[in-house]
């Protein structure tokens, strides 16, 4: 049965309508009827990407599914066009602090923030930090700046789902939340020895 479902999921709706399918249809109808476009937040945002749908349950998908998503998402990462991975840590700090952008009360020309502090501890001085993500205090100091580490960090910021399929972290580069230049600045904030992330 399971095997059949996996091979021919399309046939399901036609031949094997179940209670679960009724529920799915009803759910879609509910969501569709419950939201409307507002400001820059268009209604199409409601419709899920494949991986978003897979990660929308209280149970983790199978290891296989996760791996497949990660491989797919890895392809979305764009490496810096000029080969430089870091910018200005001072502007990186502003981006890490700002949680602005992309809500229906923001304007289309709002400069988006990275909202890093909503979930991560970063610097030695800012005590108002969230704990949904791990602490990144002393990020560069603890991890060094090997090519491997720098590339991993860039990729993680660009699209966290490439490393952990159902990660809570947004796809900053892939979803065009931050620009390439902004990501460079955030990178500098994490790696620069003079940045308050690494210097008490």
């Amino acid at each position: 049965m399971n095997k059949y479902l996996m091979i021919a999921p399309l046939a399901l709706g036609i031949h094997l309508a179940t209670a679960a399918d009724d529920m799915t249809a009803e759910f879609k109808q509910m969501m569709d009827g419950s939201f409307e476009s507002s400001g820059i937040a268009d209604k199409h945002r409601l419709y899920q990407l494949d991986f978003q749908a897979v990660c929308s349950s209280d149970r983790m998908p199978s290891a296989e599914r996760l791996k497949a998503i990660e491989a797919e998402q890895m392809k979305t990462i764009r490496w810096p066009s000029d080969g430089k991975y870091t910018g200005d840590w001072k502007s990186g700090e502003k981006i890490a602090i700002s949680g602005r952008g992309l809500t229906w009360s923001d304007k289309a020309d709002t400069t988006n923030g990275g909202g890093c502090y909503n979930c991560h501890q970063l610097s030695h001085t800012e005590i108002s930090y969230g704990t949904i993500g791990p602490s990144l205090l002393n990020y560069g100091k603890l991890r060094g700046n090997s090519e491997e580490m720098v590339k991993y960090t860039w990729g993680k910021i660009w699209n966290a789902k490439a490393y952990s399929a159902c990660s809570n972290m947004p796809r900053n580069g892939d979803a065009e939340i931050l620009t390439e230049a902004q990501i460079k600045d955030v990178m500098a904030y994490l790696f620069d020895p003079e940045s308050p992330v690494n210097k008490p």
Partner: protein
Amino acid sequence: MKTRPMMLALAVAAAIAAPAAMAEGSTADGIAQYRAMLAEGNPAELWELAGEDIWKEKAGPKQASLEQCDLGKGPGVVKGASAALPRYFKDTDRVQDLESRLMTCMQTLQGISPDNFVKGKWGKGEMEKMEQIVAYVVGQSRDMKINVDMSSPQMKKMYALGKKAFFYRAGPMDFACSTCHGEDGKRIRLQDLPNLTKHEGAAAGWGSWPAYRVSNGQFWTMQHRLNDCYRQQRFPEPIYGSDVTIALSVYMAKTANGGTVMTPGIKR
């Protein structure tokens, strides 16, 4: 005798300006202390007071009061009503939360169109009155047990839909309700996040909204709270009283069942 009143603002500044080196535990203690001070004089009472008057006033094209409104415990019964909401109502054949039910009452008894709220602005016009009525009604369940009746198939279905909505990830940031409210002991900045998937967190969250928000001096209903969660999730805007908001309310209320109603609450 002339005295300057001891101002809450001063005490708050002291709590927040605590040294950076302070351990996390004592930051939380400071916040808890601040909350306790706020709770002593909850301005939501001013909304309750106004709401009680509005409940009894004749209004709308039909010039009727809400005193015959049935919130589930029979016409006119306000005591304990919100502790048992949402519930399934036969007359509308819908599961309704407090606010959608009040819209029904205003429409049928008073002739006030739901458009006043669905297309309304928070804190303005009829919506301001709705907020005051909500404050009054939820105050009439204070200290009671959260007690939603899950026996009907309609409530069971709404619970299942609400749970699905809770974990539904979408939008440019891939967020769901569960992103922030699915684990114990998490924070956004310094704001503690209740884990709404468990009884304790759901009782704390569901049990303390609607609430007065000190930071902006506004009274937020549960519909307003959910609306702003979706704003921060970068979703499109949920329609006032829509099924997704009611389904999520059923999911939270059922998980909170047996907890204590602390409404209207007071928040930072």
